[in-house]
C-alpha cells in the first residue's frame, strides 16, 4: 500500500491535534488561528475538535500572545502559540528572549517552561520585505531557547510533537512556502528528537548542510550534480539549536568539502555558526574553504523575478558545490 501523502500544513495540524488529545494541558492561541484555522491554514479543524476553551483567537497583540504563554507555562500549562509571521517576532522579542528563555533561571529551575511559539517563516510568495524574513540566527544566539525549522511534512509532524512535549521554550519555524507541499506522513504517533539532523541524501564528494525551504532546492541541485557525476551528501539539520554538529562533522570528515545553504540573509546568518564550528573541529579534514549559499544581503522585493533572484536557488547551490570541489 502506498504511504499516505498529506501536506505540510495538514501535518502541522495533525501533530497539534494528536498532542492536544494526548495532553490536556496543551492549548493554542494566536491571531486568526481558531475560526478560520490560521492565515495559512495550518490550524484548520482544531477549533472544531477542541472548542474555544483550548483554541483561542487573539487580538493583534503579539506581546500578549507570548507574554501570556510565559505565565501559562510557568503555572503548568503547555501553550502552543502562533505569531503569524516570523517578521513580527520583532514585536515580542522581550517576551521571548528576556522572559521565556530566562524564567527557569530566574526561578531556580522551579517551573517547566513548556511552550512552543510557531511562526511562518522565510519568503517566496511575493509578500515583500516585512513578510519574508527568517530570524533563526537571532533565536539560536539565546541560551534557554530551542529552535526548529522542518522542511518536510514528515519532519514537521514528528518535530512539532517533540517540541510540544519539550519542557523548554521552542521557537518552531515553518517555511511559508512549504505549507502547500505534500509528502508521506504516517498516520500514527511518532516523534523526531529535537537536535537530530537528517541525512536527506548520501554522497561522498561534498556535503551540503541546509534547513528550511531551501532544502528541496538543494535536493534538486544534488540531482543535477549527480547527472554531472558529482555525488553530494545533503544534511538537513532540522533543529538549529541544539545543533547536531556531530552529524555534520561525520559527513565533512568523509567528504572534506562543505557548503552551507539557508534562506536568511547571508551576513550574520546561522550558516556562519556552522562554518565556525566545522572549521574549528574538522580543520584538517577540509580540502577547501566552506562556502555559504544564502539570500543576498538585501531586502526581499515583491516582484517575482527579483524575489527569485535574491533567494538562493539550485544554481547558487551548484555553484557553491563546484567552488568547494
Amino acid at each position, binding site marked *: 500500500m502506498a504511504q499516505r501523502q498529506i501536506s505540510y500544513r495538514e501535518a502541522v495540524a495533525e501533530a497539534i491535534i494528536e498532542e492536544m488529545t494526548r495532553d490536556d494541558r496543551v492549548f493554542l492561541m494566536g491571531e486568526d488561528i481558531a*475560526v*478560520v484555522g490560521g492565515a495559512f491554514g495550518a490550524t484548520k479543524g482544531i477549533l472544531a475538535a477542541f472548542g474555544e476553551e483550548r483554541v483561542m483567537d487573539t487580538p*493583534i*497583540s503579539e506581546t500578549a500572545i507570548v507574554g501570556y504563554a510565559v505565565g501559562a507555562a510557568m503555572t503548568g500549562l503547555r501553550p502552543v502559540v502562533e505569531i503569524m509571521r516570523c517578521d513580527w517576532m520583532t514585536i515580542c522579542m522581550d517576551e521571548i528572549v528576556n522572559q521565556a528563555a530566562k524564567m527557569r533561571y530566574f526561578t531556580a529551575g522551579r517551573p517547566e517552561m513548556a511552550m512552543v511559539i510557531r511562526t511562518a517563516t522565510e519568503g517566496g510568495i511575493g*509578500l515583500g520585505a516585512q513578510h519574508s524574513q527568517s530570524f533563526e540566527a537571532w533565536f539560536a544566539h539565546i541560551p534557554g531557547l530551542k529552535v526548529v525549522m522542518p522542511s518536510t511534512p514528515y519532519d514537521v509532524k514528528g518535530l512539532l510533537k517533540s517540541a510540544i512535549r519539550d519542557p523548554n521554550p521552542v521557537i518552531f519555524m515553518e517555511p511559508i512556502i512549504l505549507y502547500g507541499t505534500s509528502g508521506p506522513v504516517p498516520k500514527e504517533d511518532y516523534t523526531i528528537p529535537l537536535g537530530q539532523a537528517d541525512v536527506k541524501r548520501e554522497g561522498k564528494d561534498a556535503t551540503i548542510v541546509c534547513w528550511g525551504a531551501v532544502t528541496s532546492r538543494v535536493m534538486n541541485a544534488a540531482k543535477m550534480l549527480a547527472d554531472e557525476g558529482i555525488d553530494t551528501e545533503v544534511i538537513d539539520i532540522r533543529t538549529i539549536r541544539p545543533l547536531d554538529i556531530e552529524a555534520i562533522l561525520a559527513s565533512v570528515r568523509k567528504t572534506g568539502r562543505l557548503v552551507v545553504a539557508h534562506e536568511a540573509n547571508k551576513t550574520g546568518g546561522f550558516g556562519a555558526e556552522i562554518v565556525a564550528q566545522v572549521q574549528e573541529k574538522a580543520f584538517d579534514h577540509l580540502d577547501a574553504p566552506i562556502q555559504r549559499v544564502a539570500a543576498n544581503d538585501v531586502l526581499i522585493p515583491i516582484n517575482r523575478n*527579483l524575489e527569485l533572484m535574491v533567494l538562493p536557488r539550485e544554481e547558487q547551490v551548484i555553484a557553491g558545490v563546484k567552488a568547494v570541489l
Partner: protein
Amino acid sequence: MELTKENLLDMYRQMVTIRLFEQNLMHYAGEGHVPGTGHVSIGEEAIAVGACRALAPQDYIISTHRAHGHLIARGTHIPTMLAEVFGKATGCTGGKGGSMHLSDFDRNILGTNGIVGGGINIAGGVGLTIKMKKTDQVSVCFFGDGASNRGVFHEGFNLASLWKIPVVYICTNNQYAMTLPLCKNCANQDISARATAYDMPGLRVDGTDVIAVYEAVSGALERARQGGGPSLIEIIAFRLQGHSMRMDAMPDGSSYRPEGEIADWWDNKDPIKIFREKLYGLGYLDDEVAATLEAAAKKDIDEATEFALNSPEPKPESIYEWIYA
C-alpha cells in the same frame, strides 16, 4: 471650510475612482498580475475622501496596508500606484514594495506599512518634526481597529498627548481585524473612549457619511494646528470584501462572517450609494452627471491599467538600490 457643490461632486468622483481602482485590481489579481497580496478598501471610500479633503497640501499622511484610497484621495498619480502593485519598474517603489509599501513624497504621503500599527509611532515622530520646526503642518495617521490593540497605540498616543504633538489619529473601525470581529478584539468596543486615557479628545463618526468624516477631521486638524495636540477619530466603517485578495481567493476565506452580513452591508452601508443618493437629493447629481463622472473615473483606471500592464519589469541590479544612502 464649507464644501461647495463642485467639491462634493469631485469627492464623489474620487470615491468612484477608488472603487473602480480596487475592483479593477481584484480582477487583475485574479489573472495573476499581483504578486503577494493586496487589501482593498471597498466600503471605506468615504473615509479616505472625507479625510483627505480636509487636509492642507502641506500635511503629512502615514497609512496602513489598506491604503489605496488614501493615496488616490490625495491625488497620487494612479498609474504609478497600480504599476507598483503589479511589481513593475515604473511603480512608486520600483516594483519592490507592492500594495503594502506605497508612498508619494511629492504629496507628503510618507508611506504605508505592512506591520499593523507600524505607522502609529512614525506618525508621532513626523509630528515631532513639525513641532520642532514650528511649521504649519499636521501629521495624519490612519490605522485600523485591529491596530488599536497593539502596544504602539498606547505608547504613541501617550507621548503625542504629553508633548502636544500635532497628529490626527484616524482609526478606521471596519469591525474586523482580518477574521476577528470587534467583539473579540476590543474589550471596550468604543475605541474613541480610549482617548481619555491620554487626555485627548476622542470622536466617533459614521464612516458612510463622507461629509461627517470631512468635518470631524477638519476640526481635529484645526485643533492640532492651533497647538492643541492630538485627537483620535474613530470612524465606523463596513468592510464590504474579505480581508485581502489572497484570503478572498481561499475557498472559505470569508467563512467567519455572519451569514448575510456582506449582502446586508452592500445594501445598506455602501458609502458610495449613500453619497450618491444624498447628492441626488440635493439636486447636485443626476444620471447624466453621474455617468460623466463615472466615465472620467473609468478612464483614469483604464489608462493606469494600460500603463501598468505595459510597464517593464524591474532591472536585476535594482535589488541593491535604496538599502543604504
